[in-house]
């Protein structure tokens, strides 16, 4: 059943790359985080501290972050949706290709479950691809978080669990980053009137 | 022997004017004129020596010293050129390259004098002379090289004795050298087709140009220097590039003969062809250089020896 959830996470990431509306994107992210959380709790099994980590993961990634982002889009209304960088099909194909590369290029990493390994690496790469493929600042932020989710997926499936210090630390850092990023997004939106990063090209040589 | 050579060198100082004189009279004969006698140059020198010199306005010590320096250089040159394969004992050595240096000094002195007068014609002539000398000097050195090869050095006496005998004429190298040096003689003595010594049109002068402003004893010195230049190059040509025996006495006789021959040749050449365009001269001399280098190559390659 974990396998299915893992696949779901990848599917959701691919969905994020195509959807147009920001709200939907956030919803999909929340769903992905939910899947991650369930996997984490499942893998945590009896170990109490891992269970704690997993539940915290679920709470923060599936609830807090989406709420934060939702507030962000409430405060940065877009007059009209930002033009797309490429057609959805192209984006999807590109992301798929990247994911495929991950499958091809990653040797067994040692957690015994090739599916999870490949998917988590693929998630990180797809996260980057989202940043490449989406112009709206919010979606770039989503890409960042998708990559983080991929990391957490691999982290929770480390046999015997990763040290909770790292887990918490990563979570804390993510929260910090997302907050700062949200602040940036808001400033940029109020400065440009839109969240289109294509307009952020003042600095070039 | 070398004492005798020295005596002849000193004699050369006196005999030098004979050469241009003879060439001129021979030319006159060839052209069917009666012409002046062989001794005309001496008469000219006497006359000039009697006259007083002229200093154009604005000229300075350089202008005054130049004729003396030129003449001194030519005296040194005459003392360097060996006679019949024997170096003189005047202590100036007998090195080909030193000779070239001394000649360059005289050329420089004339140019300085021209600049001091500021006379446009003198400067024009100097500019042309120096321009031709650029190629002439390369040609001269390369021509000398062709005798330096058999002589293993630039000692003129050794070179002359190395060029003695008939054996050296078997290979093509020495012929190339002779050809190249013939051009050198034309250039340095200022004969047609390079230059016209008896022109009186300022625009065409080369060797005469710098002499324009001079008069009296200055002019006498410069005229003599011109004659000495004939002596130096004709004797060199006879010593190095005309067949001659090794011994001194015999060498002396052949030398006299070959000098005469060369003078005739010059006269003939001058009556035979017209003056060429000055900008063509470098090409001619360049061909000479090519011939000389080819000759050197053939010598080193041992072609025909």
């Amino acid at each position, binding site marked *: 059943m974990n396998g299915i959830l893992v696949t779901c996470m990848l599917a959701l990431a691919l969905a994020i790359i195509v959807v147009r509306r920001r709200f939907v994107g956030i919803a999909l992210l929340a769903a992905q985080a939910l899947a991650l959380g369930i996997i984490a709790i499942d893998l945590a099994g009896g170990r109490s501290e891992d269970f704690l980590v997993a539940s915290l993961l679920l709470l923060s990634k599936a609830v807090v972050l989406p709420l934060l982002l939702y507030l962000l889009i409430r405060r940065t209304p877009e007059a009209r949706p930002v033009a797309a960088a490429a057609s959805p099909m192209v984006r999807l194909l590109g992301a798929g290709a990247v994911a495929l590369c991950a499958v091809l290029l990653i040797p067994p990493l040692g957690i015994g479950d090739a599916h999870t390994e490949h998917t988590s690496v693929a998630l*990180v790469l797809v996260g980057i691809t989202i*940043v490449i493929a989406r112009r709206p600042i919010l979606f770039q932020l989503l890409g960042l978080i998708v990559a983080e989710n991929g990391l957490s997926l691999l*982290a929770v499936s480390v046999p015997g*669990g990763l*040290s909770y210090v790292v887990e918490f630390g990563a979570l804390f850092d993510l929260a910090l980053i997302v907050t700062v990023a949200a602040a940036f997004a808001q400033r940029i939106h109020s400065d440009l009137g839109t969240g289109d*990063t294509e307009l952020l*090209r003042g*600095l070039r040589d | 022997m070398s004492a005798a050579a020295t005596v002849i060198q000193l004699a050369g100082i006196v005999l030098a004017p004979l050469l241009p004189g003879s060439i001129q009279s021979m030319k006159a004969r060839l052209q069917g004129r009666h012409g002046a006698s062989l001794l005309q140059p001496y008469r000219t020198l006497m006359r000039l020596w009697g006259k007083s010199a002229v200093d154009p306005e604005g000229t300075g010590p350089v202008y005054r010293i130049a004729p003396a320096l030129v003449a001194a250089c030519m005296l040194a040159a005459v003392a360097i050129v060996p006679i019949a394969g024997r170096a003189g004992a005047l202590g100036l050595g007998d090195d080909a390259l030193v000779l070239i240096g001394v000649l360059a000094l005289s050329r420089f002195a004339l140019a300085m004098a021209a600049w001091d007068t500021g006379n446009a014609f003198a400067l024009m002539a100097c500019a042309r002379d120096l321009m031709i000398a650029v190629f002439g000097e390369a040609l001269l050195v390369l021509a000398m090289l062709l005798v330096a090869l058999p002589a293993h050095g630039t000692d003129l006496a050794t070179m002359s004795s190395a060029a003695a005998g008939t054996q050296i004429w078997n290979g093509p190298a020495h012929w190339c050298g002779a050809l190249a040096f013939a051009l050198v003689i034309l250039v340095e003595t200022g004969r047609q087709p390079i230059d016209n010594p008896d022109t009186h049109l300022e625009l065409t002068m080369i060797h005469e140009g710098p002499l324009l402003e001079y008069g009296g004893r200055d002019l006498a010195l410069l005229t003599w220097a011109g004659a000495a230049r004939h002596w130096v190059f004709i004797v060199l040509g006879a010593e190095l590039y005309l067949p001659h025996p090794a011994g001194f006495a015999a060498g002396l006789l052949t030398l006299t003969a070959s000098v005469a021959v060369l003078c005739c040749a010059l006269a003939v050449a001058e009556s035979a062809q017209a003056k060429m365009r000055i900008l063509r001269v470098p090409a001619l001399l360049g061909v000479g250089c090519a011939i000389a280098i080819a000759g050197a190559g053939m010598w080193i390659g041992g072609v025909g020896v």
Partner: protein
Amino acid sequence: MTDLVPTLVWLVPALPLTGMVLALLARSARGADAMARVVAVVTAAASLALAAIALARGGGPALYGRWYLVDGASGVLLAVIGVVGLCSALVSPSFLRTSGRSWTTAARSRSLYYAALFLFWAALLAVPVAGNLAAAWLIVEATTAASALLVAFSGRRDALEAGWKYLLLTTLGLSVALLGIIILAIGQANLGAHDLQALDWRSLQGAAHGLPKAPTLIAFVLLLAGLATKVGWAPVHNWLPDAHSEAPAPISALLSAALLPSVLLIAWRVKDILQPSVGPGGTRAVFMAFGLASMLVAVPFLWRSLPWKRLLAYSSLEHMGIIGLGIGFGTPLAIAGVVLHVAGHALAKSLGFYAAIPLARVEPKASSRPPSGVAGESPATATAMGVSLAALSGLPPSPLFLSELLILLGGLQAGQVAVTAIAVVALALGFLGLLHALIEGVVGEQPRRRRRARSREERPILALTAILASGMLACTFAGLLLPGSAFIQTLAGGTL
């Protein structure tokens, strides 16, 4: 002495953190400045003391604790970060005086600035003594958040853009690096080590031989790719010129002189611990490739006449490349060069960025147009710029001259003749750009209608120039003693 280390190791980051708290509490601008000065001096003293202890041990083995690791390399880094941080804190008031609006109100902005500065500094000071790979990663990630705020401090659109790019790209990069770390953790877990200690430098080093080759290699390349983004190695350096040119001058100095090398230190340690399982060939090749790429990529940008701070940023790219190259060579001479280069680059580069503060007074458009003929208006500023650029372009007697020489010699020692030759040529090409900036910027054409600096304004930068320049000279002479010293031998044997 060494028994002081455990306390100092905690004290050194703790002091600036208290500074952060105090800054947030500060009411008046004057008070904030005063507090900042005091805290900065104390912090610098502590970090220098720790650095002194670390360096005094010379070739001795590294000092370990549950959380920390102090060796020669961390000593060098601590000293550098301490000095640069101190200078940055000390020049900050004059910067804040001249800086225009920021993205919060003036009163808030100052305390916010100091808070972020001290947080940033604390994180930087913690990196070189962190005894654990994951912990180091966490700290670096934390610096990103703090410094991103500082980069965008002025609140201008360009600053926001630079900050956003910096945040996004470095976070992406670091997540890639984290992927590598987790892969290492998996390897450790399979060897039976589960808790945080599994990722200690020491235990990683111990386990290196046991780690499976293929995954470890993947982990290594992912770590390097990720850290390269933060170090600013080509081809993932793109955030660097933007952030450096838009950040407040004192922060640019910290970014360039302290942040980049301390991330480099992490990369260096990763190389050292993973070399046994990955094999020396690959690790060296990766470092040399990054180094050469950075040096070559910097050249065309240096050839353009750039605004002052942007020029310095690209020269940072070049210098990070040189350091990477030296680490890649890994021979004792090269390592000596690397150590010297880190120190010399920090001093020269920070001086350059501090010169940007008075420069902004002389030439208000300094952020957008290349400087020219500054000597006419402000000789002191021109001197600072000249000294900094001359040192950065590796002209004697700058320490960078010696360090580059050592690194190149080390390259030949490593048998990398071709790489060394390319590096020499790349250095010469980059020099052309810096030279042009040096000549035109200092004694070039003087645009009309610029105000002359008053001699009172000149004093601080002049003093700073004198101090840093003498520091550089000291580095040069110290550098002459480095080759063959026990200190270098140990470092070349491995940073741990």
